[in-house]
């Protein structure tokens, strides 16, 4: 079966709203870098944060105490429904499922909760913060806002988890009991995450992210959310998902990516939305693409938006859907012209494009993919 995209929502370091973010990407904009610091260390990191203006006017009583990750998710989710022209009532809400893709979750509140324990003891632990540290807190807020009373799932993983969530949506929509499935990927940035990724030698001190560079100089973390409302009918369809698998060593990533590309690439593929982010992922994708789809156009939005981990794959699917619908691709920023892949170094029209692959290679051993088509 195939899933169709009925609506999409986007909260990113380049602002919020599908049209607005897409326009900025086409213009070659890059998110503004923000420095984050922490009292426990002198180390400072550069990140791509969601600007405050992106959520201006967005408020809901349910989100009063919620972390920003839940606000991003709610804003994106509501935009996806709005853009689809879908208003859920009690009956349709029961026939709508919610699936969240998350990687690090509410790390800001988690850290704060644990810091309080370390500094002032267990007796000072906040009963208000603790529930917001739970992985499914964001999903429960959006479910409450939308009135969803049926299935709600939160999937945890790495940069590929969004594709796993869409595959789960596909599995669930096989059931005629459901009319819609809202899939949301969301992530928030914190100093602690930057420090952890630095220890893994995956982070660079300052932009730019240089995709597919031999230097592998690292990524910049981004944050935000992407949401897609899936239905059964629509112009853009998920023709096939590929559950991929896991790799135990970074060097093995290319092998699994080749399998994914081979399986998804039976029909003519016009473009691939890559997860290249300046790390080992780029080499793995480069090797896989060069062998399986050497002539295809390859785009990555991460130099412009940052690596948003749990939200990343949803952003990639949104990029693919926009590219197929709008028939053009934004420029890949900061890519060396010597990279042997076919990258759009400038805004590029793709009038004939019908099919796109979204390739998800995560930093924590997971890889997956899917194929989108426009009717």
């Amino acid at each position, binding site marked *: 079966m195939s899933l169709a995209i009925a609506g999409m929502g986007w909260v990113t370091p380049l602002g919020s709203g599908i049209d607005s973010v897409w326009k900025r990407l086409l213009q070659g904009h890059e998110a503004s870098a923000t420095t984050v610091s*922490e009292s*426990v*260390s002198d180390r400072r990191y550069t990140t791509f944060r969601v600007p405050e203006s992106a959520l201006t006017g967005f408020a809901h009583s349910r989100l009063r105490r919620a972390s920003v990750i839940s606000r991003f998710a709610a804003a994106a989710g509501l935009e996806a429904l709005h853009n689809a022209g879908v208003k859920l009532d009690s009956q349709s809400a029961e026939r709508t499922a*919610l699936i969240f893709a*998350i*990687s690090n979750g509410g790390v800001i509140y*988690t*850290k704060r*909760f*644990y*810091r309080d*324990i*370390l500094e002032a*003891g*267990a*007796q000072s*632990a*906040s*009963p208000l913060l*603790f*529930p*917001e*540290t*739970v*992985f*499914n*807190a964001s999903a*429960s807020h959006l*479910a*409450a806002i939308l*009135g*969803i*009373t049926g*299935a*709600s*799932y*939160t*999937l*945890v*993983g*790495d940069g590929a988890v969004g594709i*796993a969530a869409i595959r789960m949506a596909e*599995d*669930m929509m*096989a*059931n*005629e*009991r459901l009319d819609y499935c809202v899939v949301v990927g969301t992530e928030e940035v914190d100093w*602690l995450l930057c*420090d*952890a990724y630095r*220890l*893994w030698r995956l982070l660079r001190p300052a932009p730019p992210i240089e995709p597919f560079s031999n230097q592998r100089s690292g990524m910049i973390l981004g944050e935000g959310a992407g949401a897609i409302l899936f239905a059964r009918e629509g112009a853009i369809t998920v023709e096939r998902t590929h*559950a991929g*698998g*896991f790799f*135990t060593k970074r060097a093995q990533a290319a092998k699994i990516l080749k399998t994914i590309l081979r399986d998804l690439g039976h029909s003519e593929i016009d473009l691939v939305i890559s997860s290249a982010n300046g790390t080992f992922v780029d080499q793995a994708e480069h090797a896989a693409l060069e062998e399986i789809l050497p002539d295809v156009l390859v785009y990555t939005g991460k130099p412009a938006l940052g690596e948003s981990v749990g939200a990343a794959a949803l952003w990639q699917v949104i990029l693919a859907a926009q590219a197929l619908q709008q028939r053009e691709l934004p420029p890949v920023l900061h890519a060396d012209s010597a990279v042997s892949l076919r990258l759009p170094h400038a805004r590029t029209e793709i009038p004939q494009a019908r099919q796109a692959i979204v390739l998800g290679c995560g930093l*924590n*051993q*997971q890889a997956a993919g899917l194929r989108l088509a426009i009717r």
Partner: protein
Amino acid sequence: MAQSNRVNGKKVTARVAVVAAGVVSPLGFGLTETLDSLRNSRDCVSPVRRFSVEQCRCKTAGQISDERLLAARNDAPRPRRRLHRASHMMIQALNELLTQQPQFKPELTVIGTTSGGMSYGEDYYRSLHQAGKLRHAPTWIANYPAQKPVIDAQEAFGISSPGQVIANACASGTNAIGHAFECVRSGRYKRVLAGGYDALSEMVFVGFDSLQASTPDKCRPFDRNRTGMVLGEGAALLALENLDLAQQRGAPVLAEIIGYGISTDNYHITQPDPSGIGAQQAMERALHSAEISARDVDYINAHGTATVFNDTAEGKAISSLFNGVPVSSTKGMMGHSLGAAGAIEAIVCLLALQHQLLPPNINFAILDDNLDLNIVANEARPAVLHTALSNSFGFGGTNASILMRRSHRRQDYGGPVEA
């Protein structure tokens, strides 16, 4: 729930068999020890020693012996030493499962958890905060992600199926089994590995203590004088397979999963709707999914955390649907293992069906005045059981129920434990 799935336009509703299982919990390592603890109504809750609980109201939890866990790691074909405890639990559970069904090759793995390798996250932040050494930080960080114990376990036995890690708070384990059940039932998958894990961590322990959800006393589900839960830990896995295919290849059918219900009650992030509507909807949907009536259910393994709110809401929901069916919560014996709870309790139901016994609800004296339930008080009892229901409810108003049915093929009785 999966009544009318279609694959290639064709209606498919496959029956779903449990062909193997593995478990590590405070009740024991493996099905045999677990059954023995259930039969003997063993209280497996003990004082917490992993971290300081001096400032907490609650001082106890259901815990797994590190010594046994680390000794058992050498059972894996590719033992690894630097993994999180949760990985060792998963490896141990998978080892037991594969000992029963070495040829079980899942197409998908669906696992529930709430906190992944949280204790390594704590180690990392504590070292930063106290300007301690970060020599082990790369190991802590590498083993922190929730999917890592799943990957570690699969890697240890050469399984390469893609994974979905569900983090639906305390319902995660039941959600994982329920979703896996639907995947097989729909015909989209033939074999799925499902279950849950969670290892005790200081942050989560203090979190429940801060909510005053955990008790300084014994955990007394559904008792009038209950004062809260105790935490636990563990891992449990079930091998689900299309029943026809399992029988064709001569695999034993330990039980069938016949229904799954999920609901979201949206009442409060930490409290269930006091009316019990969320729990009721999950159970109703499971019954509808299984196409059976409440009268067909012989035993309910309740979520039964022993908090005032949960047990009141769940008790109301049970008595609104079922008339006198035996109910027990086994959390008094082993604590609440969060993401693992639903999976461990599915195994408790499996053992109950296989061995025709009602698992006990220990530490029970007097039923809550506001509830009308048939509690299996303090001692396991023999009973004729065909169908068991298992409930799990979690933060965020997420509720899940699965229904299991005894295998009626004589050669399948007892499965791996009744040698």
